[in-house]
């Protein structure tokens, strides 16, 4: 879209044709290294970036040109693998889906690891507690009775029922934005519930009762306070809080 012609007045103020405008930006990054000491510290880096750059591009530039010890996860770098969730200006986002120009580059951009999970180094956290609760809800198809001899059929309405929660990429942006999870990490967390929702409301799956039983825990869905932090944090736009309430409703209709 940017390739289309601008009006002449705007075009005169812009750099030469084809050149992408660039600007200086400061990133204030929370660092931690077990080799340096038990406490985290802040580092500031000022770099020149393109107007089209994302936070991930800035992190790359810092790592490649300024400080090779800066550590962060990223894999696909295009918002699909869910590796680079971090707290940018106080909000959980994917660094690869956040444009620098959208997070007020006039002030230092604050980059922290996601909260509530133990930090291993810099922006890398230990995701194991997060995946442990994901595994607990049994994120796989459960079939009762004989092994099916033909494919399960599903109408598009039945598919639509859980479509939203199939989008999860397990980046942990939701779970690590949840204040209940921050307290002691015992809460299953939004991501585990979203992925349980994906199977509970799937007409082909037979394990709904087991999954509801698992989430009907003192640390399960009932700890949700509907603060909507998870819905706001989700880089995939999943209505996380709504999914949690639908699981609650399924439990209540089952119990009464």
């Amino acid at each position, binding site marked *: 879209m940017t390739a289309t012609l601008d009006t002449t007045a705007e075009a005169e103020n812009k750099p030469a044709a084809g050149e992408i405008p660039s600007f200086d930006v400061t990133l*204030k990054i*929370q660092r*931690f290294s077990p080799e340096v000491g*038990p*406490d*985290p510290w*802040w580092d500031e880096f000022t770099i020149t970036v393109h107007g089209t750059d994302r936070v991930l591009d800035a992190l790359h530039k810092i790592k490649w040109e300024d400080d090779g010890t800066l550590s962060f996860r990223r894999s696909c770098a295009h918002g699909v693998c869910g590796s680079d969730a971090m707290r940018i200006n*106080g909000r959980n986002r994917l660094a690869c889906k956040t444009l620098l120009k959208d997070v007020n580059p006039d002030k230092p951009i*604050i980059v922290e690891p996601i*909260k*509530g*999970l*133990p*930090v*291993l180094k810099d922006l890398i956290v*230990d995701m*194991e*507690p997060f995946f*442990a*609760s994901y595994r*607990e809800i049994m994120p796989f198809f459960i079939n009762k009775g004989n092994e099916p001899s033909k494919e399960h059929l599903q109408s598009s309405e039945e598919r639509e029922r859980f479509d939203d929660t199939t989008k999860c990429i397990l980046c942990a942006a939701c779970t690590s934005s949840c*204040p*209940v999870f921050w*307290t*002691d*990490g*015992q809460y299953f967390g939004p991501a585990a519930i979203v992925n349980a929702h994906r199977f509970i409301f799937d007409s082909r799956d037979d394990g709904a009762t087991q999954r509801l*039983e*698992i989430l*009907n*825990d*003192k*640390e*399960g869905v*009932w*700890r949700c*306070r509907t603060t909507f932090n998870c819905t706001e944090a989700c880089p995939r736009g999943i209505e996380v809080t709504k999914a949690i309430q639908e699981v*609650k409703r399924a*439990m*209540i209709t089952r*119990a*009464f």
Partner: protein
Amino acid sequence: MATTALAAPRSPYARQKITRSNFELYSWMFMRVSGVILIALIFAHLFVNLMVGEGVKAIDFGFVAGKWASPFWQIWDLLMLWLAMIHGTNGVRTIINDYAERDGTRLVLKLLLYVAFTIVVVLGTLVIFTFDPCPADAPAELLASFCTA
């Protein structure tokens, strides 16, 4: 912004134990149901006490004594007391669970909460059912003016 206060990296944790039961489900349902009932009970209570008849000026020892002479108001106030106390206690229990980070803190706060709950509910229930505006052996100068015996 939370940029000045740095939380130290946390040690890894594991889920302490599996605590599956319907308790939290019933407690969640109770909060909704009791909330709706309390709205009716409390606003009717306020209306009867503050607006009907002479309104707020009518409230005195005799007014309360008159209300508690009727089993209807006894049950009404008892329901209000119990529902409000369980509703409130359950709410504070939830807040303690959410905000206390250590199990020890949690235990102490909840013990205090349950002791306070028990005292208020037991005393309140006792008063509602055993309230006698004119005790037989009380000195005359302490009795209310309507006790003409």
